[in-house]
């Protein structure tokens, strides 16, 4: 094994940092340990590409999907439940077949994924932000503030997403009237999901924060004179992010699925604009009758998405931990 002598190594190290002229931002990113660690993990690169492709498919759906499943005038019930092309009685127009309304399943997955992605990511993100903030405050401050936040969390826990959605929907209807529900559907979904998810983050972060705040590095930060906000954000937060990332990536799946349930309850997207979860729910009814593709393909798409995002999340969590690189 070729070994580099001590001096050379030290020299190399020194070269890297100071002497060179400041490189451009792009070079800096490409040159960073982070990016390097990324490239080194094959699985992650694949997962990142997979995620990217799924995102592109979803957001470019109007341009790349062979049909527009949300354009009602273009779909025909007579095309309903056509099997995928490699099966008998298929139709070359519909590669993966059609659903019970005659929507092209491939296009439906693209379009539906867009809804699912927006709702899923926004709600998980919002929930994580709320939860982390409140959790940090509760854990770090303790005492009354902690009790208050945690009891609010208890109240919140009592109400499952379904009830929250109904509540918000009712309030929104009361305020805005029922007219613009298409526009509000998104917000209602996101708010309802975010509200029902944040507690997990808050409680987890709080628990870990209570442990972390007694550690010496936090005390050192206090001795420096950093204000609580900075201690929480810069010192404690990175050290409690591990579980948060796990929950967040898993929650994505839950959000997508819950969105479908809420839509069924009439507080989400209209049935003429099925999301990925809704497609699965529709297909679920057709499993016994042999029309498996309606559920299986969207299910696969969702599983693929969740898998990729989780693999990315796993890697990111490891990468954020310098000891694991």
């Amino acid at each position, binding site marked *: *094994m070729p*070994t*580099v*002598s*001590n*001096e*050379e*190594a*030290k*020299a*190399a*190290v*020194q070269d*890297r*940092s*100071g002497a060179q002229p400041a490189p451009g931002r792009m070079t800096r990113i490409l040159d960073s*340990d982070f990016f*390097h660690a990324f490239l080194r993990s094959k699985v992650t690169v694949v997962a990142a590409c997979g995620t990217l492709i799924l995102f592109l498919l979803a957001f470019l759906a109007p341009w790349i999907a062979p049909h527009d499943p949300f354009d009602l005038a273009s779909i025909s019930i007579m095309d309903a439940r056509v099997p995928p092309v490699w099966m008998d009685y298929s139709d070359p127009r519909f590669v993966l077949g059609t659903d019970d309304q005659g929507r092209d399943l491939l296009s439906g997955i693209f379009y539906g994924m867009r809804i699912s992605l927006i709702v899923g990511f926004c709600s998980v993100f919002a929930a994580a932000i709320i939860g982390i903030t409140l959790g940090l405050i509760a854990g770090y401050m303790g005492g009354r503030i902690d009790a208050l936040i945690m009891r609010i969390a208890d109240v919140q826990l009592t109400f499952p997403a379904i009830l929250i959605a109904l509540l918000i929907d009712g309030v929104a209807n009361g305020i805005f009237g029922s007219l613009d529900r298409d526009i509000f559907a998104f917000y209602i979904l996101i708010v309802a999901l975010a509200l029902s998810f944040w507690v997990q983050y808050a409680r987890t972060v709080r628990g870990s924060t209570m442990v972390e705040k*007694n*550690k*010496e*590095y936090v*005390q*050192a*930060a*206090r*001795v*420096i*004179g*950093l*204000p609580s906000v*900075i201690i929480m954000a*810069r*010192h404690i937060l*990175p*050290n409690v992010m591990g579980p948060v990332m796990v929950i967040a990536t898993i929650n994505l799946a839950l959000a997508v699925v819950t969105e479908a349930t809420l839509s069924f309850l009439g507080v989400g997207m209209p049935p003429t604009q099925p999301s990925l979860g809704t497609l699965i729910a529709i297909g679920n009814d057709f499993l016994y009758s042999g029309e498996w593709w309606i559920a299986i393909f969207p299910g696969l798409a969702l599983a693929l998405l969740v898998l990729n995002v989780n693999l990315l999340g796993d890697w990111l969590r490891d990468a*954020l*931990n*310098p*000891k694991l690189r």
Partner: protein
Amino acid sequence: MSVLDIRDLTVEFPGRKSVFVAVDDVSLSVEAGKILGVVGESGAGKSTVGNAVIGLLQEPGHIAGGEIFLHGQRIDRLAYKQQRLLRGRRIGMIFQDPLTSLDPLQTVESQLVETIRTHLPLTGKQARQRAVELIDAVGIPDPEERIGQYPHQFSGGMRQRVVIALALCAEPELVIADEPTTALDVSIQAQILELMKKLCAERNVAMMVITHDMGVIADITDHVAVMYHGRLVEYGETNQVLGAPEHPYTQSLISAVPRPDIKVDRFPVVNYIEAAGTPQRQIDISTHWLGKARDFSAVSGPLVRIRDLDMRFETRGSIFPSRRKYFQAVKKVSFDIEQGETFGLVGESGSGKSTIARLVTGLYQPTSGTILFGETDLTSLKNRRDVLAMRRQMQMIFQDPYSSLNARMRVREIIAEPIRFHKLASGNAEVRRIVDDLLDHVGLGTAAGQKYPHEFSGGQRQRISIARALATRPRFLICDEPTSALDVSIQAQILNLLKDLQEELRLTMLFISHDLAVIRQMCNRIGVMRHGELCEVSGCDQLFEAPQHAYTRELLDLMPSMELLSRANLESA
């Protein structure tokens, strides 16, 4: 026959762009009943050798070449299972960082008992009995009571002793002790060294002791290995090496050992530096960033006045107040620290020194008593703004450098943070410059800024901690064992820097240390602590020449002798 035989050991830490060779072609051997001392520059690879022997190199480090034999059996290639069987039973390991080596969630007792029962066929009761004996043997008072406590309830030195007890409890044939006495006062240190010597003599144990303390080397070792930059530069019998060092690094190292007997102006520095070593310049404080004018309000009289300070920890909680148990860590302590003075605090391990430091910085609320900083009573500060203002003037170097560093931040960010936050620099570029400069001054080199704390050796971590404390340009610096993990050359460099700062800026310091030589060189006045009480406060020379209190005399008597260090070398300093 030698118990441990290391042949041509090379250990590498592959980085992204280059491979860092931490140990370069080192060959050593330790014989049964003999003690091998390993000294050398901080970051030279001493701990890495120890870790390699026990097979617990931190990833991504790995053995790149060489062989390790235990009683003639090759152990560096053993399967995981067999390697495990060696650990504890045949090789006892004392890691350098005793404060993080103990599981925070288990009592000391359970950690001891489980280790004993893993290796020895004892019942739970017997194991506990033995655990108590061990704890007693390493000099922890009140073992029956103490053993049921958790590591965080122990002082630094006590934790170090627990770790020693854990390493020795299965009576291994080889003990690797990585700086086993850094946090111990001289009397405990003597006791521990005695214990180790006894083990060697009576049970024929082979021992490898890594240390910076030349006194320890002289005292107990049979052979010495000197390491520099990953390589073995000198290796031989202790008398030989200490008395007539051959390699210039060894010579210069010995010459830099601080002297407890006379007070000198500056610490002698090591003048042997290889090409790529860290530059050591004397700085000109008047033009340097560290010396820039500071806007602290003037204070008349002592800067810090401590009055009747009491600190009580609850060691057992209960719903019934009568069943609660308390531990009185600090009892009615009062002293003043004048502006521009260094107040030394020495004393028994576990006597409450770190607790006082923490009380002063406000990390603990005292049970009673007042701490005046200038005219402000720190214990009654409520206003957040005032607290912050105080904090800026006051900094602390923690006893345990590693756990006081946020493992997820790069060293550069760690040091830059106080500068940014206290707005001591005008822009990012300046912050960067200051950080690089500080890193230079503590002998780490600017490249270190890119790395994370876990990538450093024990001494290097301690220097990061020092750099961070200096970064705020404090008026009052609390140093809790600031140089315990540093080799004499770095120690000299840093202590000299502190002295310079003190001279120019009237930096006030509370200096906690077990190293009486360092105390003697650094401090104007010294407090001696025992059992939470301050038994004596007096001027430096007076204390060393005419100690009042019996305990002080005991301490001074136990200072390791320097006889073996050749007179010639001492003279040349």
